[in-house]
C-alpha cells in the first residue's frame, strides 16, 4: 500500500479489524486499475471476485463512473462488462486520415458509364452491353461512392432491380442531368471515339448497326427502356 491510502485507511476506519474492507475511495482506485489494465471489458462479478473481501464493486464502479463523467475517457458498459473508452467527441484525435486517390477500375468506370447513359438499367442489361458479367464488388463500390443507387424495379418478368445515377454523381462530374452527357456521335465528332475503320472483311459488324445505335444514343435521356 502506498502511504496515502494507508493513511486514508486509518483515518476512516480507526481501530477496526485488519480484515475490514478497504475504504470506498480505495475500492474505487482498485476498480480503476482493474479496468485500465484489462484487455477486455470486465463484469462486476469478476471485479468483485478480484477485490479484497468485503468490497462492493458496484458501489466503487458507480463512484468511478461519476468521476470520469465529462472526462476524455469514459466508463462504458459493453455487453456484460465495463471498459474505459475514449470519449466519442474526441475520436478525431485517434484518427489519422490518409487520403489516397485511385483511378477507378476499367470495369467500374464502364459500368458507371453504362448506367449513366442508359439509366434506369438492370444488371442483365449492363452485362449485355459490356459483354461480360458485372461483379458484385463493382456495383458495391459505385454504391459506396454514392454515385449510383437503386431505381425502380422493371415491370418485366422477374421484376429486376435497376440502377440510376445519384445527385452526388452529378455533383462529382459537374453535370446538371445525365442528359447532358454527349451521345456517341458527339463523342466521335469530338475525337473521343477511336474512329479507326474496322479491319478488312468483317461482315456482320457493319456500319448499319452502328447507325441504328447512334439514333438511340443521341438522346441518352429519352426512352432508354426501349433500348433493350
Amino acid at each position, binding site marked *: 500500500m502506498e502511504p496515502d491510502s494507508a493513511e486514508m485507511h486509518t483515518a476512516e476506519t480507526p481501530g477496526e479489524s485488519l480484515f475490514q474492507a478497504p475504504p470506498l475511495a480505495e475500492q474505487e482506485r482498485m476498480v480503476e486499475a482493474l479496468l*485500465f489494465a484489462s484487455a477486455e471489458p470486465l463484469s462486476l462479478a469478476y471485479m468483485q471476485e478480484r477485490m479484497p473481501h468485503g468490497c462492493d464493486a458496484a458501489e466503487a464502479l458507480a463512484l468511478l463512473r461519476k468521476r470520469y463523467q465529462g472526462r476524455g475517457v469514459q466508463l462504458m458498459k459493453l455487453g456484460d462488462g465495463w471498459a474505459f473508452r475514449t470519449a466519442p467527441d474526441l475520436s478525431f484525435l485517434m484518427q489519422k486520415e490518409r487520403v489516397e486517390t485511385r483511378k477507378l477500375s476499367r470495369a467500374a468506370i464502364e459500368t458507371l458509364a453504362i448506367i449513366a447513359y442508359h439509366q434506369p438499367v438492370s444488371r442483365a442489361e449492363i452485362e449485355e452491353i459490356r459483354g461480360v458479367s458485372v461483379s458484385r464488388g463493382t456495383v458495391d463500390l459505385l454504391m459506396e461512392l454514392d454515385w449510383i443507387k437503386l431505381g425502380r424495379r422493371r415491370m418485366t418478368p422477374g421484376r429486376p432491380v435497376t440502377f440510376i445515377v445519384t445527385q452526388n454523381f452529378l455533383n462529382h462530374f459537374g453535370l446538371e442531368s445525365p442528359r447532358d452527357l*454527349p451521345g456517341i456521335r458527339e463523342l466521335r465528332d469530338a475525337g473521343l471515339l477511336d474512329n479507326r475503320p474496322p479491319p478488312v472483311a468483317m461482315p456482320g459488324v457493319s456500319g448499319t448497326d452502328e447507325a441504328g445505335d447512334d439514333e438511340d444514343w443521341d438522346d441518352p435521356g429519352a426512352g432508354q427502356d426501349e433500348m433493350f
Partner: protein
Amino acid sequence: MDKTHPLDSDGFGASNEIEARLRAEALIVDVDGFEGPLDLLLTLSRTQKVDLRKISVLQLAEQYLAFITRAGMLRIELAADYLVMAAWMAFLKSRLLLPPDPEDAGPSGEELAAHLAFQLERLEAMRRAAARLMGRDRLGRDVFARGLPEDMRAVRRTEYRATVLDLMQAYARVRTRDDFEPLTLKRESIFTMEQALERMKSLLGEAVEWGDISRFLPEGWTEDPKKRRSATAATFAASLELAKLGQIELRQHETFAPIMLRRKEA
C-alpha cells in the same frame, strides 16, 4: 568442470575444521557456478568478514591459491582463466611480501592490490545495483499498461478519381468494342450438340416407337436452311452419343434413307 567426480575427503588436511572443509567442498563442487575468477575471489573475500575496502589482499591471494591447489588435487579441470589468475595472484603475493625492487619501474604490490580491491568492490556494487534494478516496479509484473489500447487508426480514405471525360471514353469504348472484335462468331444460327442432347433427353420418354430423327429438331429451326442444317447436325451427333450410352437405338434402311430412332428398353 567435473561435478560428478567423487570428492575425496582425504584430500583435505585432516586438521581442517569440519565447517571450513564443508565450505571448501561447497566451493569446489560449485566451481562451475562461478562467473569467472573475479566472482570466485569475491566469494572468497566474504569469508574475511570485513568491509571490502579493508580486505587483506594478501590473505585473499593465499585463499585463492589454496583453492586452486585443492581443485588440482581433486583433478578438477579449471578453465584457463582461473589458472592465469592463480599465476597472477602468486605474483601479487610475492610483490606484497618481498621488499620493492628499486630496479623495477612497474606498479607496486600495493597499487596492484588496491586495484584488485577496487575491482571486487565494483563488481559487488554492480551486483547490488542489478538486484535493485530488477526489484523495481516492472511493467507487466508490478505496473500495467492499458490493456485495451485504442489504436491510432490510420483511416485510409480512398478517393476515386474519374472525370466526365473518363466516363465518356469508357462508354465509347464499350459501344465500339464489337467493331474491333474480329473473332466473335455470330452464334444465332448455331444449334450446339449440348443443346440437342438436352432437348433429346427431355423428349426420349415419348420415343417408344421408331420415329424419324427429324422429329427432334427444335421448333423454329426447320425453316431457315442455315439453321436447319446446324440443328440437324447437332441432333444427329447427339443421337449418336445417346446410342453410344445405350439409351436409344438407331436404324437406317438404306443410304440417304431417313434415320429412325427409338428408346431402348431397359
